[in-house]
């Protein structure tokens, strides 16, 4: 117990003193997760809108499949991306293995179902009369979709924040794709995992506290966005 308290004390000192390693890993993690979330927003908010507004056979099945992938194991996503970008994989020539870009790709795929599903359900929460009302006021399809997305903005913010939360807390794919290389691909989660393995409890606790703080901030933001939508 004393050892744990001592480690906790050291970890606080590491955070408060702005330890370069801790800061570097934190910033890299935020950068990777933010990039993945931004990329996912650019891809999956429009994709979710298309699924929501378009009528096509099998739409309900597609939405069920998307929702079923909410809880896809991160290690499985890591494995799929690894097979895709490994030297012998179809995207091997891009040289993404053991790079931050590779981790971003894995995280984009990981958060895709969550973001798509939440965007679709967020749009579903907007009045069913909205699209036709907007079109009858002269809106084109894209203007109409933009206005409906704006109506669902609290739900969209929740989708983005939850996706960011899933990306930043991910460990399996980051480890598999990034390789946990110091100074290049090490993230908060992989660093914690490594630190625990090496017995560097204080540094792991420091990184864990930072990760927890980020998770709490994201959670509070999601809650606030949800309150606004009600």
């Amino acid at each position: 117990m004393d050892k744990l308290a001592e480690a906790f004390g050291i970890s606080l000192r590491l955070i408060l003193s702005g330890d370069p390693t801790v800061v570097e890993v934190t910033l890299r993690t935020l950068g990777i997760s933010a990039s993945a979330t931004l990329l996912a927003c650019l891809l999956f908010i429009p994709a979710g809108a298309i699924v929501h507004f378009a009528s096509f056979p099998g739409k309900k099945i597609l939405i069920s499949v998307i929702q079923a992938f909410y809880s896809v194991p991160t290690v499985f996503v890591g494995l799929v991306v690894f097979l895709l970008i490994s030297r012998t994989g179809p995207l091997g020539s891009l040289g993404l293995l053991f790079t931050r870009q590779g981790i971003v790709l894995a995280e984009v795929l990981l958060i895709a179902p969550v973001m798509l599903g939440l965007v679709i359900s967020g749009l579903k929460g907007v009045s069913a009369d909205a699209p036709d009302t907007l079109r009858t006021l002269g809106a084109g399809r894209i203007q109409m979709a933009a206005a409906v997305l704006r109506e669902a903005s609290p739900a969209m913010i929740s989708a983005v924040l939850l996706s960011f939360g899933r990306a930043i807390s991910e460990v399996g794919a980051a480890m598999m794709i990034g390789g946990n290389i110091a100074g290049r691909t090490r993230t908060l989660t992989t660093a914690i995992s490594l630190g625990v393995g090496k017995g560097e409890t204080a540094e792991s606790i420091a990184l864990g506290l930072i990760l927890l703080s980020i998770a709490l901030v994201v959670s509070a933001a999601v809650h606030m966005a949800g309150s606004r939508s009600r």
Partner: protein
Amino acid sequence: MRLGLQNVSKSFGSRRVLDGLSMEVPEGGFFVLIGPTGCGKTTALRMADLLIGPDSGSVTIDGIEAPGSGRAATALRRRMSLVMQRPFMLAGSVRRNTEYGLAVRGLRPDRANTEAMLEAVGLAGYGDREANTLSGGELQKAALARSLLPGPELLLLDEPMSSVDPEARPGLRALLRRLHSGLGITIVMATHDFTDALALGTCGAVLMDGRISQAGTLDDIFHRPATLEIARFVGQVNVLSAVFSGLDASCGGLRIRIAEPVPVRKGFVAIPPEAISISLEPVEGSQRNVIPAVVMSLEDTGWTCLVELELSCCRLTARITRESAADLGLVGGKSVYASFKATQVRVLQ
């Protein structure tokens, strides 16, 4: 703008909502599409606004077939406006909602114009109000202002009075009349309420089971309904099929005296409930129809009573004062005489 629907049909799943509907709305007219709930009025309006396409048939604007979708349809839709039965309001102020139509057309809203439009619909000073806090009647007015601000040539109204309080309806009717005569735009209004139709329309059509049962002037529809269903739908009570011969109308086994001979052999007669008197003894009078009847039921409606009477071959409803009902001691099963003047019998040809 002239609107035409030519022989349009539309099904949703196995349900056929429009079945060969055809109608022509003249430029500058106030056309009323009348029909019971679920007869296809909303679908017809949505089709006219090019929100949905027909399975067969065509929609024409100014005599030219309208495109079903795409930019050309959007461009055409921007020349008209549809006010939905349950208006959807965007989050934000009434002003933001009112100016939305201008924004999507890439036009810069003029605050003074917006305020003037809100004032015209009776919402002066409502610009900064949160749109989703408006009452039903206010919502309808806000939706109307929003639709009118871009200056549509054709205004489509889907049951605009449906969520308006009865006391506020005359005001909204007056507003629609003013807008129609003042702006000169073509208006198509769907309603199931014949009072609104008569008060506002210059012409119209009765939509039943997805097709037009009768079209023409509202006076024609009301006074010369094509079928018994239409006569009943437009609010005629005590409507009976009749075969005319001179001053007699033979309604099944009942002979009813009418005031003037009619030029047709078959038609309908309608007897307003207020025209029927009830007495315990036969009432004398050469121009009066006096028919023995049995009281079936009484319904207290406040100042008056609706009395359902069974005659030899049909039933009639009479409206009398509560005092009269009490004086006569009317109860179910009581034998009475129903009488009404020949001049009060409406002939529907």
